[in-house]
């Protein structure tokens, strides 16, 4: 049995006291790949922000279990690449290096070994060739590789990806997702993926949480993504 890192127990999430989503219960275990599906407006991003600690839950419990080091689990967050302001004059390396800041004391310089580790993560994600270029000028796929490298540089227990392949072509999507699966196996970390891409979920996820208006469905990709079930769910979303 893999170690449980995060448990959501009858959790309700929302903004300013307004509940967007309620009654959510599932666990994220080391080595697992959980996909979070749902139409726009069903509360995927709100749930993700709550799990990451960016906003408090409205009700229920979010339990973060200690990792192997006895600390709260580290989240390696990969946001959507389009959200960053191009005014910042940061290279791909600068962005990836930020992943190490959690281990560097405030006011201290980033040690050389952390810089080398960030460079190693960029190499691992295939971002080494364009790491010295301006982050804002990279393509969508290149930015995603840098952001995944940044998340890995944080030495995460849980890799959290918010639609990492949005705006990325099919070939790049395939390469990015294969890499993420490989990293999950190699480093034995958990993956929590928010996506609209059914093909990606079918191929990689071992647990699916599907947010529909009025119900949170859970199961394996095979259980939820067969033709009959999908027709039912899509009908619920249309209604």
């Amino acid at each position: 049995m893999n170690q449980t890192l995060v448990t959501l127990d009858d959790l309700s999430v929302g903004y300013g006291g307004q509940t967007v989503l309620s009654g959510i219960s599932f666990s994220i275990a080391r080595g697992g790949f959980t996909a979070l599906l749902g139409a726009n407006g069903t509360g995927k991003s709100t749930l993700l922000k709550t799990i990451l600690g960016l906003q408090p839950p409205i009700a229920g419990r979010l339990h973060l279990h200690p990792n192997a080091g006895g600390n709260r689990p580290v989240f390696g967050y990969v946001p959507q690449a389009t959200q960053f302001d191009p005014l910042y004059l940061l290279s791909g390396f600068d962005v990836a290096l930020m992943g190490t800041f959690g281990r560097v004391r405030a006011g201290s310089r980033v040690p050389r070994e952390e810089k080398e580790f960030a460079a190693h993560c960029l190499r691992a994600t295939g971002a080494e060739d364009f790491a010295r270029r301006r982050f804002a000028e990279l393509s969508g796929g290149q930015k995603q590789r840098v952001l995944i490298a940044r998340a890995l540089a944080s030495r995460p227990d849980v890799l959290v990806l918010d639609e990492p392949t949005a705006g990325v072509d099919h070939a790049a999507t395939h390469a990015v997702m294969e890499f993420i699966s490989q990293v999950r196996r190699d480093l034995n970390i958990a993956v929590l993926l928010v996506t609209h891409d059914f093909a990606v979920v079918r191929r990689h996820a071992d647990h699916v949480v599907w947010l529909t208006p009025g119900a949170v469905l859970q199961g394996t990709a095979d259980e939820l993504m067969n033709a009959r079930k999908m027709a039912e769910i899509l009908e619920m979303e249309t209604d």
Partner: protein
Amino acid sequence: METLFHILAPDFLLRNSVYASLLVGIACPLVGVYLVLRRLVFMGVALPQVSSTGIAIALSLPMWLGLNVSAEQGEGHALPFAGSILFTVAAILLLAFMERRGRGVPEGRLGVSYVVCAALSVLILAKNPHGEMGLLDLLKGEVITISNADLAMTAGALGAVLVAILLFHKELLLVSFDRALAVTLGKRVTFWDVLLYLLIGVTVSMAVLSVGPLIAFGLLLIPALTAHLFASNMRQFMALSVVIGAASSFFGFWLSYTCDLPVGPTDVVLLGAVYAAGWIAARFLK
């Protein structure tokens, strides 16, 4: 050239004003980088005006309380600095809090703050017999004399701002660039935000007190925007902003002294010319 040597001479009457201008020319662009990056440029317009109102109120307070303040006592910067920093920091924290809540029109709030504070400063000074003794000149951007004690206070405050920004650049940049990442890495985001706002508040207060609100705004905004045209990384961005700010402050002072013009408007026009030249040069270089 002769004027240049005259300004640099140790016995130059306004030498402290030159030093203060240089200090402001270094500190304002540095915090201005963060205002530009966080797209808070309009805050750079409103805050110097809020600061001026704080100064005007602080200078009028003894009169309102019926205390007898002589001209000599009124020349010190401690009371105006307290008023300036109190108003500026309160305003920046309030405006930032309202922005975080995401309601209303942020530009509207900044516009209202600017225009109300500008009007309030004039009204308060109109009823203050000491208002003519320096503060109106300061608000108009005229050269004013700065005592050694005031220069030391300016140097101490702005020096502390420079050290804090350079020391915590990593944290301030992380929180500005990607708040969500900072939270997931366990950083105390609110603490770093408040620190940045305090640094901006102290810098604006000292700048307004030393050189006036017009040039404070000019130095917060224009060097950073000009440097952004040419810099290719954050280090260059900050260094170039500081160089442009310091050089414009010094040569603006020299120009105003030579041509007998008010320092504030001269500096700002010079900065504007540097920005225009930089914009054209950047077009040719690309």
